[in-house]
């Protein structure tokens, strides 16, 4: 099977730079629009929870952030595989750019979770299995970022980072289940996050719209950072010269 030309051309940093530049305004617009709709639907239209009152509304930030935190790590590992197999420059730039965003989403998940936990569970932090694995995920992100900061900015460092991501992605299920197992051994399951078997539609659609918003924001911000990363990596190439000299 042969890829269409416009797709293979995207592998060239110059072409990708222009393509990303055209894409970013649309993604940013989608992110802003769906954020407003989702926030209105979640904070105004959705009814209060019968048990948690208005406190549950933090899920419209918390749950999409949690989804993103896990999705981004897997996505980074996928780009890491592309880096190792094809030495793809674009994938390397995307991988590095996504790391800080992923770590931020993880931190937001932990922060909003603990804000929610204080009134609902009566404590900022519990050694719950989900909380603990999210915390370990934050450390995995921090390890990757620290490593990329410590190593010189060159393709070899990106490939080393890609190996770390692949090792991490193999380990995440093992860590997740071991933590779950550890938690159930130590304390009875006192915490059921959303006891109801299914979530009401009035609450579900704002949640999904917010998830779209977060995803679009991530795509826009990641492409933005990737553009900067590509410029830095390709300072001495022809297309950056042409870009800066008209």
């Amino acid at each position: 099977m042969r890829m269409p030309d416009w797709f293979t051309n995207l592998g060239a940093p110059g072409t990708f730079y222009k393509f990303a530049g055209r894409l970013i305004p649309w993604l940013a617009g989608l992110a802003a629009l769906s954020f407003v709709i989702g926030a209105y639907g979640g904070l105004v239209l959705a009814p209060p929870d019968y048990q948690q009152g208005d406190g549950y509304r933090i899920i419209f930030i918390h749950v999409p952030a949690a989804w993103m935190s896990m999705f981004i790590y897997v996505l980074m590992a996928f780009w890491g595989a592309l880096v190792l197999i094809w030495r793809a420059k674009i994938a390397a730039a995307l991988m590095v750019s996504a790391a800080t965003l992923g770590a931020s989403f993880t931190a937001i998940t932990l922060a909003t979770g603990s804000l929610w936990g204080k009134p609902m569970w009566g404590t900022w932090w519990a050694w719950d299995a989900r909380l603990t694995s999210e915390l370990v995920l934050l450390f995995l992100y921090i390890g990757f970022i620290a490593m990329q900061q410590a190593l010189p900015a060159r393709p070899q460092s990106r490939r080393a980072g890609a190996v770390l991501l692949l090792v991490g992605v193999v380990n995440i299920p093992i860590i997740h289940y071991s933590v779950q197992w550890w938690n159930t051994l130590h304390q009875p399951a006192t915490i059921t996050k959303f006891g109801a078997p299914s979530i009401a539609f009035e609450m579900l659609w704002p949640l999904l719209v917010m998830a779209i918003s977060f995803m679009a924001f991530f795509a826009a911000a990641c492409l933005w950072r990737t553009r900067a990363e590509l410029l830095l990596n390709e300072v001495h190439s022809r297309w950056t010269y042409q870009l800066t000299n008209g």
Partner: protein
Amino acid sequence: MSAPAIGGAVAGLVRRDLRLAAQHPFQWLMPLGFFILAAMILPLGVGTDQNLLQSFAPGALWLCALLAALLAQEGMFRTDYEDGTLDLLLISPCPLPLLIASRVFVQWLVTGLPAVVIAPLLAHSYGLSWTSGWILAITLLLGTPLISLLGAVGASLVVGLNRGGMLITLLVLPLCVPVLIFATAAVRATAGGLPVSGHLLLLAAMLVLAATLAPLACAAGLRASGG
């Protein structure tokens, strides 16, 4: 390369590493010293209440062993990188993962095994029964090679860095969470009179998985960062 030639190369590397370790006893005495010292200094901080000591002995001893094993990983490829041995390993016709596996094995033999041997004594000093002490030693026997393997992956990624020790710990510690959980659970189960074989089998399964995959990841890491 034929099978006997590969066997000869691996045996030669093992002999060389063992001889080097014998010539530099501090290389393996330091992690052991760290393990004993850290474990002995802990009761000074938390007091000598026997019940308290007994309850956190498995976790405390395992954490000390974990940190000692990780700190020892910093020097794993350092001297090889500096004197050019690593380049020879990289261009050798012998499969690199195999060479790395033998290197990790020797590294574990000189830094991990002494900790396994001394563990029952330390456990006894924390007031654990001899049975618990033996189970602790068995979990260390299964767990420290695992940590050496994971630590070798971390070391391979930052091989060119001057002060990579802290970074290796930062990279590898989150990956060690399952080892810590199952190993301490096994010791705690012994103290409570519960069966331990499940925990030990899970540890062994993780060891098999790591022994299979970690040398490959380590080889990819060395080729990426050291080549």
